[in-house]
């Protein structure tokens, strides 16, 4: 049984200008000990998808009727969409699921010590006593590689460097022993050398705690180094998903190829940088058919993709792309 099953997740926001579709019929699943990379540009719906797992989206959100999120913890299936009361939501918010945000400075309260914040959430989510919670917090700080954890425990967020703050954030997120960790661009605000340390740390922790991780990023290089499988999103749709090596080495969808071609590569300095043509359309003018068709340079005018929405078709075992079956056959 997989740890997390998301089926037909559709999510819209009610705004003054009308209903805006942020996530459109997205399905994926995640096993224990597995890292799923969720990749896409700004506005692709990756963060909104992750927040939906904890029902953290703003109050003007409208979930589609068929949307299903099932979390399997300790033999019990939790229907996340059915959770309403704050007390029930605690099971997913900070209990079975923890989240790490992009900006570690904004995620810690500035006027409360790191230690107090770590203990506070442990008292809410576990049966530990205050003294045990403190002991565990210091142990976790040590575990993520923070030196002199007992001193750091009493410090405030501003006394730490960016990398250390992000480590403390990870220590706090993991201290409740979540079954699922959502990391939303956890390394984007960090320098490359610190980023490499945080990536290594997260890999070690997956191996040790056997939790599932959803790693949200716009950086395909980071995904290649961390994830087992990847889902590429564009305008709220999954364009391609599958094992990370297969997707990055042999991308089936034009959008994934576009992202890869736009990336500056260090092993070939002469390769031209190829931007994806066109701009991301306004959320109020959602393209018909395949949402990517207006920017897809590989399509001829009048193609099927302009009016019909392509299904996720299996390209290779476990590797799916939003293509019509006839294009998959010609692809390989």
């Amino acid at each position: 049984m997989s740890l997390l099953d998301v089926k037909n997740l559709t999510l819209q926001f009610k705004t003054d200008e009308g209903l805006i579709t942020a996530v459109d019929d997205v399905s994926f699943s995640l096993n224990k000990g597995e890292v799923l990379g969720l990749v896409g540009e700004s506005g692709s719906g990756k963060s909104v998808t992750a927040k939906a797992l904890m029902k953290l989206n703003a109050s003007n959100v409208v979930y589609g009727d068929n949307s299903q999120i099932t979390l399997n913890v300790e033999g019990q299936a939790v229907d996340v969409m059915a959770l309403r009361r704050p007390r029930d939501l605690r099971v997913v918010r900070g209990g079975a699921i923890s989240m790490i945000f992009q900006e570690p400075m904004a995620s810690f309260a500035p006027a409360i010590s790191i230690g107090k914040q770590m203990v506070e959430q442990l008292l809410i989510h576990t049966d530990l006593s205050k003294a045990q919670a403190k002991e565990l917090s210091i142990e976790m700080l040590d575990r993520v590689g923070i030196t002199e954890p007992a001193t750091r425990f009493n410090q405030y967020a501003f006394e730490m460097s960016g990398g250390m703050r992000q480590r403390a954030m990870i220590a706090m997120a993991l201290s409740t022993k979540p079954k699922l960790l959502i990391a939303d661009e956890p390394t984007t605000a960090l320098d490359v050398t610190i980023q490499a340390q945080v990536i290594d740390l997260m890999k070690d922790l997956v191996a040790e705690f056997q939790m599932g991780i959803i790693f949200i990023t716009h950086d395909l290089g980071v995904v290649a180094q961390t994830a087992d499988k990847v889902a590429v999103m564009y305008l709220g749709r999954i364009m391609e998903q599958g094992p990370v090596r297969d997707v990055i080495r042999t991308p089936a969808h034009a959008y994934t190829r576009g992202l890869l071609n736009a990336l500056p590569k260090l092993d070939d300095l002469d390769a031209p940088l190829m931007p994806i043509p066109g701009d991301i359309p306004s959320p109020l003018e959602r393209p018909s058919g395949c949402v990517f068709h207006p920017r897809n340079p590989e399509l001829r005018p009048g193609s099927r993709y302009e009016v019909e929405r392509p299904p996720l078709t299996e390209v290779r075992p476990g590797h799916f792309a939003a293509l019509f079956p006839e294009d998959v056959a010609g692809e390989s």
Partner: protein
Amino acid sequence: MSEPLIKTQDLRVEFPIGGGVFNRRVMTAVDGVSLEIPKGSFFGVVGESGSGKTTLGRALLNAVPIASGSAHYDDGELQLDLANMSPKELKAYRRRAQLIFQDPYAALSPRMTVRDIIAEPIEIMKLTKSRAETDDRVREIAAKCRLNLEHLRRFPHAFSGGQRQRISIARALACGPQFVVADEAVAALDVSIQADILNLLKSLQRDLGLTFMFISHDLSVVAHTCDHVAVMYRGKIVESAPTRELFANPRHAYTQKLLSAIPSLEIAD
């Protein structure tokens, strides 16, 4: 190699950090930097947060005071000692040296139309004689930056990040500068837009004969755009070499560390 447009010798920038009148304490942000930026080149400066790369760029634009050392500008017509400029010289330098900012959302006034944003430097520097002439100039530079001319009457909120950065670039180039400092100009953009902006900067450099100082934390972006790279660490330039040489054969341990930390698309089997 062509003549240097910018040449610095042992340049230092310091910021006071508390202390009294008698025990002045300073933090040295740029610590003895000597460099030459050849005319018409795309000169990259890389380093991590706090390495002093932004401060160096600002010092060369005379936006922070130079504590000691020298910095000279020479475009063939005008020679300036950047550490010692008269108000008149500074005015002349402002026309020739411009800055492109990192965040295209914060850099543009939400209450001005795109036309007014691009025209503002022209009007302040009184480079044109009539409004019609200003408009011509704005249209010319907007076209060079691949902006849709029908968009000139709109306000910045109507544009995406990539389009905003093109507006930012157009404004920086409106007064016809020789030297442009691009401080993390693509760091806030998505990869596909980043590629577009980098290509635009390169084509502008070629067409207008500009000299760029390209400040970035991203080595792979620098590798693809710059002719020459200087690596900064704690206020000092630890290594400086033509791009190909630096990436093929990094000499300094810090450069090697930076290079090995970049997440690669290659996945081990």
